[in-house]
Every structure is written in structure tokens, then in C-alpha cells.
């Protein structure tokens, strides 16, 4: 009981939270600008096919990671919070995998019945 009281007290004192140096924010800010510029260049130079898709995904995940890790402070949070937030993303990955199979089947059916004209 004494410990929980202590816990509540420390919760109230949380305003003393330490802050990071300004340099790290400016660095991340600059990096985000550069990465956005690069992803725009992917379209500007009209890269096509696998090169285009992999570059888009690479810059996207890098930007998302930087925003979450540093601007949203996940890099400094305790693992209890970080893991509660990141593991549910695997459910989204499963959903993407399932719907990927689904749209290929739909596409096949449409070609088969609308274009080829069925068996």
C-alpha cells in the first residue's frame, strides 16, 4: 500500500520529465525533408516496376520509423508501452496478406468471365 502511494506521488511529479537536446529534433526534421524529397524524386524521374515500389516502401518505412521513434518519443519509452503498440501491427500484416490473395482471385475471375468469356 505504501508503495502504491509512492507510485501515485511520483505520477504527480511527472512534470519534471527530462527533455532531449534540440539537435536531435532538428536532425530528424531535416532527414524527413530529405527523405520526402527523395520519394518525390521517385515520381519525378518516373522509375517503374520493382525499383519504384521498393524505393517508395523504403522511404515510407524510414520516414514512419523516424516520426514514431523520435517525434512520438517511442525510442525513449519503456518496452511495456512500445510492445503493446507495435505487436498489433502484425494483425494488419496478416490482413494485407489475406486481401492480397483475395484481389488476385477477384482479378482472375473478372478476366476469366468478362474478358475470356468463361469456360
Amino acid at each position, binding site marked *: 500500500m505504501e508503495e502504491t502511494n509512492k507510485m501515485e506521488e511520483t505520477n504527480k511529479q*511527472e512534470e519534471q520529465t527530462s527533455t532531449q537536446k534540440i539537435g536531435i529534433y532538428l536532425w530528424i526534421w531535416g532527414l524527413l525533408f530529405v527523405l520526402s524529397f527523395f520519394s518525390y524524386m521517385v515520381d519525378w524521374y518516373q522509375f517503374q516496376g520493382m525499383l519504384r515500389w521498393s524505393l517508395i516502401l523504403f522511404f515510407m518505412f524510414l520516414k514512419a520509423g523516424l516520426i514514431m521513434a523520435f517525434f512520438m518519443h517511442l525510442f525513449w519509452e519503456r518496452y511495456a508501452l512500445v510492445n503493446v503498440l507495435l505487436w498489433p501491427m502484425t494483425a494488419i500484416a496478416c490482413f494485407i496478406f489475406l486481401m492480397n490473395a483475395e484481389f488476385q482471385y477477384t482479378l482472375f475471375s473478372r478476366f476469366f468471365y468478362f474478358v475470356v468469356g468463361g469456360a
Partner: protein
Amino acid sequence: MSEQKIDGFELKPGFKGMASDTGSDQTMFKGVHWGKAMMWIFLLSDTFVFSCFLISYMKGRGSTIVDWPNTSEVFSLHVGGVPVPLLLIAIMTFVLITSSGTMALAVKYGYEKNRKMCGWLIFATAIGGLTFVGMQVFEWSKLIHEGVRPWGNPFGAAQFGSFFFMITGFHGFHVSIGVIFLFIYTYKVFAGHYESKKRGWFTKMKGDYVEIEILGLYWHFVDLVWVFIFAFFYLW
């Protein structure tokens, strides 16, 4: 950032810390303000909402036998008679990143009790968000003028319009709500609500600069969603 030291508790780092935090028979997110934990839970649910939109877009675009409209032509702007691909979208991206950076600095100055800097940076963030929404209104009216409708468009597959209005509309709605709150919190910071510990509207919680971090989480999330929309809807 949560407080890494709590009196009377030994907080272990890493996965060992996660195990002991979770199994401590007490609050699980140690040193994390409850408002911040709740904002994270809300953002997690919002992640699922936007994921469902983008996955349905993947399914719709992947299963149509009509060619998808060429986004770099559809979203091009004419500068001096020359079409520049995705120009407006690129500017919108840079505006949103700029406002994300000012928000991150506002959180930092808030925790340092630098009231004026914090207030001005939140105000700058709000202006950035307002600019973004303004440009989105321009983009929507341009496309509607060119004949893009949720049920069809002159450029290609009919599903394009419905996904465009749904996804960017929902994102724009989030930005608009964020802008409203940014202006409210600009007022709250300048009025000194976090120095006088004035209570909020729907809560007994005393005013504290942690509220700025919670607001910042929401704003960075809006930027985060735009990163994915930019990649999948405009660039892909």
C-alpha cells in the same frame, strides 16, 4: 518521454523491464501519464481504421480490369504552361512535415516551461495545418471540376474517385480536428493554464505541459498517416 526513475521502484530496462512492469500487479505503463497512454490506445485504433481504408484501396485497385488513372498526371499542376507532376501533393507533404517539426519543438519547450516559445510553436503548427487543409480544399475542387466523382471519372477505373474522397477526406477531417485543438491549446498555453494548474473541461486533471505532448502525439500521427497515403495513393 516517460520518467525513467520512480522512487521506491527499480525499473529494469528492455524486455526484462517489460516483464516486470506487466507483472507488477500495479499500473503497467510505469511513469506514463494516463492521458498519454489513452491517446496511444486511441491512435492504435485509428491506425486500424486507416489500415482498413488503405487495404480496401489495395483490394479495389488490384482487382479492377480497367487501367488505374495515372496519379502523377491527374495530380499535376501547370506552372507557366508546363505540367509539373504531383506538385501540390509535394508541397502539402512538406507543409505537413514542417508543422510536425514545430510541434515536436513545442513539446520540448513545453517541458522546459518556456511558455512563449511553446505557444508560438503550437500557433505555427496550427497555421501549417490550416494551410494543408486549404490546399486540400483546392485539390478537391480542382478534381471535382475535372469530373472526378465517387462513381466514376474521365481518367480510368471508376473506383479511383471513391477511394480518393474517402481516404483523403478522412485524413483531412483528422487534420481539421487537429487544427481546432491546436488553436485551443495555443490559447491555453498563452493564457498560462499550465502555470496556474487550471483544470480542463471534461477532466479533473490539472493543467500540465504533458497535455502538449498528448496533443503532439495526435498531430504526429496525422503526419504519419499522410506518409502512408502519399506513398500508396499518390506515388504507387
